[in-house]
């Protein structure tokens, strides 16, 4: 049992800018930033629920999302096309 994947490779997505209590795998530094879906990695039990002794089901789609380093770090001095890729669950993403 898994939730339906709402995004496809190439879609622009924004990471939810939220700071809930609990165990969250979405890094703080990427919240609120916009990137491009690189691939769907599969569907997995929600770690936020697994951390609280629950099943985490239904499984949720997990995406690899690509962000430009220069947009994430204001003082970034590398190449302008350098990217960081982060695996993020669907419920942390919205269409940009």
């Amino acid at each position: 049992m898994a939730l339906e994947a709402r995004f496809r490779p190439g879609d622009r997505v924004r990471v939810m800018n939220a700071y809930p209590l609990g165990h969250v795998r979405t890094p703080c530094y990427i919240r609120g930033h916009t990137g491009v879906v690189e691939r769907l990695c599969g569907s997995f039990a929600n770690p936020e629920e697994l951390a609280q002794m629950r099943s985490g089901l239904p499984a949720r789609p997990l995406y690899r999302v690509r962000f430009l380093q220069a947009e994430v770090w204001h003082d970034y001095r590398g190449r302008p096309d350098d990217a960081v890729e982060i695996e993020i669950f669907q419920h942390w993403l919205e269409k940009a």
Partner: protein
Amino acid sequence: MGGLPAGPVEPSEHEYAEWERRVDALMVLLSGIKGPQKLLTVDELRKNIEALGPEAYDRMSYYERWVTSITQTMLQRGVITTEELARKMREVEERGA
């Protein structure tokens, strides 16, 4: 810690102490990779490491964080009680005295 400046990464290797090997084995057994029961998820381990607070996180070594987090998880799940833990810790201390 999550996105904070931390200086350069310094890779280092060390021989594992016997207690560190035991903590590792404990994690394998409790997470059900081997053995009959699953009493812990890696996500609970991470949650309880994150709950240590920055001061404790920096002070503790890698396996100290693990054993603290495993203990917290066992208390939360009711596998052991605080009373049992206190009794056992006193026993071990007296053994070493």
